[in-house]
């Protein structure tokens, strides 16, 4: 009897215990993992003595030291040649692109022709003047007044005066033609767009054959060529206006590019913009309204491959020692 297995007394209790053990195991295994996880990618963070110290954070963008220069064209016309590519370093005065100068060259040729014509006229007039003067001198040197008639002398004097005035007129024409040529050359020069400073070409938005209008560079059109001095690069960091009082101006900032937050670069202070401006939102939507104003601080980056113009960065700047924390919301 005892050796017989009883369902109620043996199988059931043992089964129940096994069942509850499995249930307990399932419950414990099934408990949700509510622990916090370390971020898979490093978010931007303050490092070094800023990690636990007083600091001000800001976001910003990388820009050339010269800021971005939108190259415009003085005259409108067709682009005939673009001499630079994005990334090129150019010296000051180096030609960037050329606008169709055929009309100006025609004017120059015309003016040059006029110069030649005027010079010929001057030569002819000089010769005539010279002949007239010689003849007049000959008449004047004759002692015998009867040798030439009085009328001959008057005619000779008239010819000399006429030649002189023709010469003056021709000279005036020469001057006019020369200035016309100079004007044409200036125009040709104006149709050649040159680098205003030495720097790096950041963007080229014109191609040969395109028509450029003089208002290029402003308005809604993209600028023809963008360039700037990228050595060094600067960053423009937006600081919330409430935090302005806390920023230790002049101190170096720790900069991390977006998406590469493990990189921490020390940037030296350049200047603070005198004006507090509305914050430019990331969306740039036309409907965007703003109520946040920011102080823009400029920092110079050390040479680095990690930064590009226009890139967004996160910055940590030391706060003034003992500056009270703002409690404004």
């Amino acid at each position: 009897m005892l050796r017989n297995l009883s369902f109620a007394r043996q199988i059931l209790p043992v089964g129940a215990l096994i069942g509850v053990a499995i249930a307990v195991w399932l419950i414990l295994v099934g408990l949700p993992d509510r622990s916090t996880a370390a971020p898979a990618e490093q978010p931007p963070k303050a490092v070094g003595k800023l990690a636990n110290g007083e600091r001000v954070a800001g976001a910003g963008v990388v820009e050339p030291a010269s800021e971005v220069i939108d190259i415009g064209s003085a005259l409108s016309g067709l682009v005939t040649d673009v001499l630079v590519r994005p990334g090129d370093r150019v010296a000051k005065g180096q030609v960037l692109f050329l606008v169709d100068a055929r009309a100006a060259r025609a004017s120059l040729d015309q003016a040059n022709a006029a110069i030649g014509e005027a010079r010929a006229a001057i030569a002819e007039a000089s010769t005539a003047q010279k002949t007239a003067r010689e003849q007049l001198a000959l008449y004047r040197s004759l002692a015998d007044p009867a040798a030439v008639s009085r009328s001959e002398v008057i005619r000779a004097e008239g010819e000399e005066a006429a030649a002189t005035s023709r010469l003056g007129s021709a000279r005036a024409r020469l001057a006019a033609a020369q200035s016309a040529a100079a004007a044409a050359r200036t125009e040709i020069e104006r149709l050649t767009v040159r680098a205003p400073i030495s720097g790096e070409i950041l963007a080229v938005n014109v191609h040969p054959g395109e028509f450029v209008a003089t208002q290029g560079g402003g308005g809604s059109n993209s600028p023809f060529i963008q360039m700037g001095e990228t050595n060094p690069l600067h960053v423009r960091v937006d600081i919330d206006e409430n935090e302005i009082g806390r920023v230790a101006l002049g101190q170096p900032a720790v900069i991390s590019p977006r998406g590469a937050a493990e990189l921490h670069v020390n940037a030296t202070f350049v200047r603070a913009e005198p004006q507090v401006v509305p914050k430019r939102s990331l969306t740039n939507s036309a409907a965007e309204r703003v109520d946040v104003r920011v102080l823009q601080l400029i920092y110079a980056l050390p040479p680095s491959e990690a930064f590009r113009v226009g890139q967004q960065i996160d910055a940590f700047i030391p706060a003034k020692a003992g500056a009270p924390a703002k409690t404004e919301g």
Partner: protein
Amino acid sequence: MLWIAIRMLTGDSQKFYGLLFGIAFSTLLITQQMTIFVNLVERGASGVYNAPEAEVWVMDPVSRTTDVSYAMPSTALDKVRSVPGVEWAVPHLRAQANVRTADGDLEGVAVIGVDDATLIGLPKRMATGDKNVLFAPDTVVIDDVGVTRLFSNGASPLGERLELNDQRAVIRGIADAIPSFTSTVVLYTRYSNALNFVPGTRNRLSFVLVGISPGQTAEGVAARIEKETGLKAETRKEFARAGVDFIIQNTGIPTNFGITVFLGFVVGVAIVGLTFSLFLRDNIKQFGALKAIGVTNSRIVQMVGVQAGLVGMIGYSLGVVGTVAFIKGFGSNPFFKGFYIPWQIPLISLAAVVVILAITGFIAIRSVLRTEPAAVFR
């Protein structure tokens, strides 16, 4: 004698299984209902648990939960980053939007914008695809419950196009997320995309998620953030609690489940009490004989205690096993997704079983103890 007690109990199989049923049913009812209750109200905190990296949540002072929030100016992020003890801080956007599916249907969705660079704020795991798909343009990642809601025909949502606020959004991944209380479809995308997907308002930043520096406590950092920025900062635990409290305060769920649990308890007391009393009354002559032969009252109490203990152990085990089987069995149902049995609940039902058996055993044993041994001669 305890061997005899157990024989006595199991010998009367009708009452034995009646007792087992009573205890098992009570345990099942209490455990299962409390489990569902806890899981249901914890859905209020799903938003918090779905962002596993954040140790502190910073929000506008009027924000209450992950779904009831008021946006902050974008510079709030920098203010939070300025607070000592904050190791990192990233923006987090949560907003409601309407999505137009490929079929042209309109569906309300929650759009969650996670940090652009680090994707902090995404659920821990992906059901399909890799987190990095979010770096592709116009990408959204849908949560797995959303798949069943939005693509009920079983088609794969990957590559499907949605229209959000006149913007194109392409589903490129499925996140393994805890569903929200309302089982809303959730679309995860990068913060900058989310700004486009959600109709514009002036301020868009719903939350700032904060990680704390080593050696700092979340509570300390949260307090410092509140002091220095004037924003509201809650630790992960507090904010999850706030979400749960919000559900509890704003729904009738606690009352409903409380009533069911109470009924389970009452049914347990009733079934077990009646059966146990009947069982002991049936055996009262035997108990009387034992008392006359020379078994002390304390041994009698031990015998009844062993009987109650056996019934309790088996019944409780069956109830717990039943609950686990229920939860596991319905685990594939989206409603039960992520349901788990908090370890405290089986302990609570164990305590309830002990109380049930103590009450009923106490009532039932009184008649046995009152029996005069002399009664066996009548």
